[in-house]
């Protein structure tokens, strides 16, 4: 009953946020008609694609009351792994690289999941720790050196950039992942269990859902996405080094918060997260048009996050006060 109420409340929030994003888009287009040009929009999607995929993965983890601070370090480590693999065996094509990054990303995510599930360690400490470890591992793997464009094979570089119907393959991947999430989160049993485990772990346990196992699954899926994005990132920017995507985990978490994912768990939707990412993307690409320095991006993100979490904190107050006593 109460979950039905949350779901419809969620849908209402997504609708309102979609209207807001559309209004922002129209305002920018009104001032700068060139903004809505197909080429520009395709570029915007291409710029936002990796953020969208990562934010969807992060959402799963936050849904089950976790947080993955190691997501960007995981990305960077898998990206370096992909680059090293490609340098060693340049003729192998893209398929083994994709498989390698997906597997290694899943494993790195599963480490987080196992520690949280089996030892019941606090997610923030676990992923803070693995973040340092994964970053350090990149240094050991690369010995601190950069892998540049001229050391990467042509197929390796071309894969995310190749165009199909006017959009890059990277954009299509993001669309595919987003579509998969939208359907799976509404229709699949695992997803319903995820929401249940995040919304109320004890009640979920009583109804036969292992909340810890759900956390493990969420971390593993998030890791797989991070691994895949590692290759995409390295290929798109044509360089791999120890510090790629440094601090990007916070942008990803910010996108989730803006998209209406509640840090307390159990609340969030794929549509909201994608909208959150697009919202950030629109602001980012319109800043230079308005003549505001790109250095303002972070500040604006901060304002948006705070407004978003303040609004959702107010909403939650009405809904949860009956169930949970707060000091």
């Amino acid at each position, binding site marked *: 009953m109460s979950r039905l109420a949350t779901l419809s409340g969620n849908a209402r929030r997504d609708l309102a946020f979609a209207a807001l994003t559309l209004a922002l888009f129209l305002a920018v287009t009104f001032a700068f008609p060139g903004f809505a040009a197909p080429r520009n929009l395709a570029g915007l999607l291409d710029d936002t694609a990796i953020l969208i995929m990562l934010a969807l993965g992060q959402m799963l983890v936050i849904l089950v009351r976790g*947080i993955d601070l190691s997501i960007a370090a995981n990305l960077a480590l898998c990206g370096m792994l992909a680059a090293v693999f490609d340098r060693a065996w340049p003729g192998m094509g893209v398929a083994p690289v994709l498989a390698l990054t997906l597997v290694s990303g899943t494993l790195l995510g599963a480490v987080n999941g196992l*520690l949280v599930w089996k*030892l*019941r*360690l*606090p997610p*923030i*400490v*676990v992923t*803070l*720790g*693995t*973040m*340092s*470890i994964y*970053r*350090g*591992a990149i*240094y*050991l793997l690369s010995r*601190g050196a950069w892998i540049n464009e001229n050391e990467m094979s042509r197929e390796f570089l071309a894969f995310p950039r190749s165009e199909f119907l006017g959009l890059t393959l990277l954009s299509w991947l993001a669309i595919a992942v987003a579509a998969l999430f939208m359907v799976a989160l509404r229709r699949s049993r695992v997803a319903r269990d995820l929401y249940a485990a995040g919304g109320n772990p004890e009640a979920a346990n009583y109804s036969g859902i292992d909340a810890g196992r759900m956390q493990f699954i969420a971390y593993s899926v998030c890791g797989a996405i991070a691994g895949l994005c590692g290759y995409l990132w390295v290929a798109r920017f044509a360089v791999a080094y*120890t510090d790629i995507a440094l*601090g990007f985990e*916070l942008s990803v*978490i*910010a996108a989730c*918060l803006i998209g209406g994912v509640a*840090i*307390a768990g159990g609340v969030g939707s794929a549509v909201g997260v994608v909208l959150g990412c697009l919202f950030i993307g629109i602001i980012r690409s319109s800043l230079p048009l308005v003549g505001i*320095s790109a*250095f*303002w*991006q*972070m*500040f*604006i*993100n*901060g*304002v948006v*996050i*705070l407004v978003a*979490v*303040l609004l959702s*904190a*107010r909403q939650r*107050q009405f809904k949860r006060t009956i169930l949970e*006593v*707060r*000091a």
Partner: protein
Amino acid sequence: MKPAVLLRWESMLAVVLVFEFVLFSSLSPYFLNVDTLSDATFNFTERAIVALPLALLIIAGEIDISVAAIIALASVAMGLASAHGMGTPAIASVGLGTGLLAGCINGALVTLGRVPSIVATIGTMTLFRGAAYAVLGDRVLKDYPETFATFGQGYLVGPISIELALFALFAISFGVFLHRTRWGRTIFAIGANPVASRFAGVAVNQYRFALFALTGLFSGLAAVLLTSRLGSTRPSIAQGWELEIISMVILGGVSVWGGKGSIAGVVLAALVFGLVTFGLGLMNIPGIVMSIFTGALLILVVAVPALMNRAHGNQR
């Protein structure tokens, strides 16, 4: 049981510390030297000064991820104040004031806005660091008056730097405050069970607000010391420090679930941290390799008690 475990944790840290001393002095002939050791303290004093109030905040069951961003914002504010021709005392006051104000914003978000502290401070971290970037861009501020360098570069007596003296002073004050006063007991109570504390008549939100403000103020102080030591301000100043400071606190035996911890543990952890950084530097090992050890240690610190609980039978 509880004090015994705590005691064991702190003595473990002390053993690690002694081990480090022996290891580094056997590895490098330059290590056991008063001037070298005095230099080594600069590796941790600024971070450790923020770790003290943050330990209180974490014991009270909250967290502040924005501390490093507050340092950056306060440093930028000081740089601007200096560019407007203010004197050293005024510049330092601007730094402390900015920190205090930023801490109050965090406190207000958590108490009045009812936003969970991790989310609130992720937001303000982006906001404060973003403000530092928005104001400075890629510029550098470095026109500080000569006397301003005293805070971060000066010495009190002999080899004891002002930074170290300040840290020692505050470590003792925080230790007495947390472990010997009613307010300290109340902080433990809030962390152990905020709802019960509220029912017992504790003004939980006032404590929370005060602790956030205090953490902000000390981040401002760290900004004064760091800016004074470096003599320049970039918006990327103290980047990533929040994680190092939080690691220091957790390594010191403070429970992330709240309600447990001691200042002695945090001080020992700070010393261990500073010595490791310095020792690895002596041996030309890059800091990023050290981060593997820190990360593993961090997980180990929380995993060991969890494993022990498991061995002693189920807790839940």
